């Protein structure tokens, strides 16, 4: 054994606490790294990455019309991330937001299709639709929550399978009972009194989600429920010790989460799309997981992250039309973003000690 190898080249040590400024520097640094890595697919498509990023940003923000479309994309992402946050805080891996949105959309559409023509008041119709949407999403989330609480059934797969079932049901509805002109596989557009009004050119869902941001923040940080969720997320045994009914809290949190997703589903049919189709969630349920995690489950940070992802999404659509770079570059970039953010926490929690610097570190 040589003397050189007496201590390993790199060792790890846990940090006590890092200067918050440094923490943010690392996080922002990781976003920069992600954007640089995101250039690779663009280069592979034979395009100039800087020009491409420029097109993405201008395609998302350069005109009021573009901004409106970007906001339209951000609304469900933000709403759904808010829905997921309590579940993830509880370490309940609900990846079924996609299905919960879809179910909420189905229930809301039921009101529009069956009752809207009988009720004059737009307000009443919309409220009814919202309640129905919340009910649908809550129901869809409750089922896996119930089995998790009762039998500890794996919630990740359960919620996921529920997505496919919900989407399957819409496919059946749009080709069957709710089909408009026979053979079209399309559900007719909703009547005006079942549509959400626009505010500043975008359907008013953005106001609803901003209200939700505040409500979820209060719920998570100042209520007994939020406290229970946080304790359960840290240690199930401690929660039981404190007398919490863990099973019920899980079911209740899933009901709430599903209800919010359901409301998002209602906003999508009533606001963004004007009707129901099987692509109503369109991956929002998955992308919002990225939003929730990148913002460290902080409601206000979600506004920023949802906006960034919406810009990438809208921008990549423009990129496809202008430079014919496939729009799926958005998924790649958001995947890389998530990888980098996950990885960078390591550098916040640990410090690397290199062999040469050993003595200095010991003194410090």
């Amino acid at each position: 054994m040589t003397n050189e190898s007496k201590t390993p080249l790199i060792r790890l040590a846990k940090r006590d606490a890092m200067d918050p400024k440094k923490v943010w520097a690392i996080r922002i640094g990781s976003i920069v790294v992600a954007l640089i890595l995101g250039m690779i697919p663009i280069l592979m498509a034979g395009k100039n990455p800087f020009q491409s990023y420029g097109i993405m940003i201008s395609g998302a923000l350069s005109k009021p019309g573009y901004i409106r479309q970007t906001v339209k994309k951000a609304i469900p992402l933000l709403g759904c991330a808010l829905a997921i946050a309590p579940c993830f805080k509880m370490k309940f891996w609900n990846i079924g937001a996609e299905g919960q949105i879809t179910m909420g959309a189905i229930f809301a559409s039921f009101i529009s299709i069956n009752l809207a023509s009988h009720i004059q008041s737009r307000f009443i119709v919309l409220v009814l639709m919202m309640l129905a949407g919340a009910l649908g999403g809550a129901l869809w989330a409750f089922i896996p929550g119930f089995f998790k609480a009762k039998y500890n059934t794996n919630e990740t797969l359960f919620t996921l399978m529920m997505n496919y079932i919900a989407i399957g049901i819409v496919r059946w509805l749009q080709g069957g009972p709710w089909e408009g002109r026979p053979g079209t596989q399309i559900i007719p557009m909703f009547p005006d009194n079942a549509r959400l009004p626009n505010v500043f050119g975008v359907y008013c869902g953005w106001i609803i989600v901003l209200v939700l941001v505040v409500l979820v923040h209060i719920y998570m940080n100042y209520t007994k429920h939020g406290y229970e969720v946080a304790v359960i997320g840290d240690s199930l045994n401690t929660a039981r010790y404190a007398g919490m009914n863990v099973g019920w809290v899980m079911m209740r949190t899933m009901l709430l989460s599903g209800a919010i997703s359901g409301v998002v589903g209602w906003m999508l049919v009533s606001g963004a799309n004007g009707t129901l189709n099987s692509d109503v969630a369109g991956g929002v349920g998955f992308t919002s997981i990225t939003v929730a995690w990148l913002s460290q489950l902080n409601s206000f940070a979600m506004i920023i992250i949802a906006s960034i992802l919406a810009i990438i999404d809208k921008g990549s659509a423009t990129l496809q039309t202008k430079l014919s770079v496939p729009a799926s570059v958005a998924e790649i970039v958001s995947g890389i973003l998530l990888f980098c953010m996950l990885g960078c926490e390591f550098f916040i929690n640990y410090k690397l000690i290199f062999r040469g610097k050993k003595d200095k570190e010991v003194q410090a």
Partner: protein
Amino acid sequence: MQKVQSKCAIELKGITKTFGKVVANDDINLSINRGEILCLLGENGSGKTTLMNMLSGIYQPDGGEIFKDGEPVAIRSPRDAFDLGIGMIHQHYHLVDVFTAAQNIILGLDDGKMDLGAVNEKVKEICDRYGFDIDPKKKVYDMSVSQKQTVEIVKVLYRGAEILILDEPTAVLTPQETDKLFAVLRNMKADNKAIVLITHKLAEVLDVSDKVAILRKGKYIGTVDTKTATAQSLTDMMVGRSVKLNIDRPLYSNPKDKLVIENLTVVDGEGIKKLDSVTFTAKSGEILGVAGIAGSGQKELLESISGLYPIMEGSILFNGDDGSQIELVGKTPMQIRNIGVGMGFVPEDRLGMGLVGSMGMTNNMMLRSWRHGNGMFFNKKAPQALAEKVWDELEVVTPSTEFPVRRMSGGNIQKVLVGREIASKPPVLLTAYAVRGLDINTSYAIYNLLTEQKMSGAAVLYIGEELDVLLELCDRILVLCGGKVSGIVDARNTTKEEIGFMMTTVGGKGGKE
């Protein structure tokens, strides 16, 4: 590479190790000789295990050097340690439950194919040589604690270890099993192996060792020959000053039956009886000690009383001050609380059960009061006040009441937990291993808190592992053996031997051998 073996197998020079801001080992010098049993003595938290973990490759030192037979060596991984002939038997056994003994023994060896027949042969040979007895085909989950320990020792010997380190090997053994282990260790010593025994039990040190090295708060104090040492001289070196070994034990004037437990029987998830017709009474103004080998049903007993463990049969009656009797069986912890039965519970697993590691003191205080008040918002004022009170009165070392308790030291964590549990002056206080891992000063602080509770009329249950403490702190001692009550004795008129015997045999002297 057969060299002339020097007597000194391992030498440590100036070893230093820090975790964050905590200095676990500070400039330690130590030599370990062949044909000797060296006891590494020190209180819990004095850095014994950390030091030995650096020899077994679990940790790397931040400073200092390790010499094997005079050559400087680097031990970067457990594998390096094996290659140097160093084997460590950890306090928590490193065995795969679903594997057999033989499969566990060959884990990590790269000597060609998997030939379990040959392994069994060699295992038998080792067993015969030193006087063990194990079945190589038995699965670990079917084994008793002492059998598991045997597998660990054989595993190390199978690798040809010549330096054996045992971390608190007797903590989970009965006195009889301990004697057997010591006999084996003496055989190994005769075989010219170097043996290091980590312990804090003085009697064992004096019984088995040749030399004693003492650590105190991460610092090396010195090495003495066991022949010249006495319990008092070792204690002095260990704690640094003469401590009063007596714990105050005042008598409460007017004890009343507080908890009447009859025929309590519980089974675990696999259908094994963890408590079997347990019957006893806990009185107010009394500390009732609970002794027993680890895993004799102590944990289940406390969890059953506090409503956390499903009860198969039996009754737990709580006598209120007003003469009312309340049956606790079948109630959830919340229901027990809501009908006004105050109960404090200091569980064994502090961060996994008693506290929320990621939260600060205030939010941890809230664990007992979060439901107070109407409406959906919690009230943070009362827990904040309590946190400040505990911080102040129990001298908890923490930068703020928001600092995550996970990052505090063991003693401070325990103070937070005990402080919260006694805050409401509960008529029943349940504690499990309340001083485990704490230094002597904190331990005494905890003893005093418990005695205070007793003198204010609480019925205190104290599950402990050190018989000396049980004998001096408690009024009566209940001994559990395999889930049964082996007997209840007056702590003032019993001996360690009597309790030790009851721990292994139901009924003590009256039972079968």
